[in-house]
């Protein structure tokens, strides 16, 4: 579904991604882990077209999309739940969701959007309660859910999530992971970035480890979970304080 070869990208002179290659197959959950500043967000932004790569190629659904605009990439079925949520603060929750349905409406018409809206309310009941509130006044967690709901509104083939569990209550985090699993059941493909490596690898089929802009390890989740390097670097489960 998504194939990336020898990708380089960055900001101005700063080269953040160095020679990245990866692929995501249909129906998979793939996770990407890495320390702060490794370039995970940058990678997602490059895929969705917010940043233009300086080298390499990206194929989504077997069509190269390095030169496409964000709009085209989203329309072709790729959606991003951004890192800092990026809700439309001065618009209502429902409007936020409807905006998420922009490409769906173009593809399948209004009825589909309203059906999908109901679906999202079902996934995130709290959003239904807050539907007329300005999104900017939602609590952090509520905003996170809204961002997810909005991305899902486009019924994407591939959902990319940038640390979706950030700032969520443990119970909700579990719900989120449930939702991700459910998305896979519904035939979606997910590219997941998570700090909670253990949980992420727990639900993912495969994983990549990113360090200062390079993929250093990759493989099926269970193998990564067993990898001692990975364990030492990301999964340390021992006490967090001395």
């Amino acid at each position, binding site marked *: 579904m998504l194939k990336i070869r020898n990708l380089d990208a960055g900001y101005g002179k700063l080269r953040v991604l160095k020679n990245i290659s990866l692929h995501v197959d249909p129906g998979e959950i793939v996770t990407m882990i890495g320390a702060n500043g490794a370039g995970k967000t940058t990678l997602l932004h490059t895929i969705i077209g*917010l940043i233009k790569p300086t080298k390499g190629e990206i194929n989504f659904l077997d069509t190269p999309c390095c030169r496409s*605009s*964000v709009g085209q990439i989203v329309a072709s079925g790729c959606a991003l739940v951004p890192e800092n949520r990026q809700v*439309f603060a*001065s618009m209502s929750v429902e*409007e936020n969701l409807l905006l*998420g349905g*922009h490409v769906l409406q173009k593809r399948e018409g209004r009825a589909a959007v309203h059906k999908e809206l109901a679906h999202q309310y079902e996934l995130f009941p709290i959003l239904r309660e807050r539907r007329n509130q300005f999104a900017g*006044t939602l609590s952090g967690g509520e905003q996170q859910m809204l961002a997810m709901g909005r991305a899902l509104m486009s019924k994407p083939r591939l959902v990319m999530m940038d640390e979706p569990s950030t700032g969520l209550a443990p119970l909700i985090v579990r719900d989120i992971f449930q939702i991700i699993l459910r998305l896979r059941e519904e035939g979606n493909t997910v590219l997941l970035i998570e700090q909670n490596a253990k949980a992420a690898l727990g639900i993912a089929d495969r994983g990549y480890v990113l360090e200062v802009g390079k993929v250093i390890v990759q493989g099926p989740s269970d193998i990564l979970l067993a990898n001692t390097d990975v364990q030492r670097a990301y999964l340390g489960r021992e006490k967090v304080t001395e």
Partner: protein
Amino acid sequence: MSPDLFFQYLFAGITYGSIYAVVAIGFNIIYNATGIINFAQGEFVMLGGMISISLLHFMPLPLAIASAVALTMLIGAAIEILFIRWLQSPSVMRMIIITIGISILLKEVALHIWGESIRSLPYFYGNEITTFSIGSVHISPQVVWVILASAVMVAGLNLFFKSTPIGREMRACSANRTAALLCGINARNMVTLSFMLSAGIGALAGCVMSPITYTQYDSGSALALKGFTVAILGGLGNSGAAVLAGILLGIIEAFSVSVVPLAFQDAISIAILLVILFVKPHGLFGSGDAARLKDF
């Protein structure tokens, strides 16, 4: 004050107010789509008037107005494409200053095309002194045209921004551009569209008011100042509020004539605006909550 005089002031105020309002509406469109105030809005009004006056030599009035509106829309689009479209994440301050520059340029271009003389469209109905009377109060039919135009615009725009997907998308672009992109919205086209729309609305305003106010190459800035005042007074982004605020301000100005020297009229109306802003920092009908949630 005799009732006659009272009503005459009242209708004078409504005349002023509807002129201000019809200009203010244009400000709100670009504001809603980009979060900036287009300081060249007054020049769109001027262009609408000037172009239609020039076209009137070749075609009947309705056609001249329609063509002027269309042409101004093209100019609006061209300006956006030339000066704004390709900027990478411009700040509000930068956009304000660019539009100030555009306003200066448009004025200069107009000066060199049309010269400094004043022109006007003919009255749509009747002539300069035609009025109809309600009781002893006389109103020019052109005022009715202006009011009608602003009413239609407000209704249309409200419908557009509140209930149509494309209107919602425009607002989304101003609320958070990145997020709008992520929703698959073509933010650039939205901005272009908003410039076209506000240019068109400005041009239409320029046409309907031209018989009353006359059009001159620099008549834009004075109108823009009033329009801006009214847009702020009502609360940015809300066109219905702008009309109410416009008429309110117009009426205040009209009645102020009876108590203070006319020379201070503008000072009075702006002082009132300032006082209102100090009490309600987001305009009469603006929501502080919504404004706080915007990025600036």
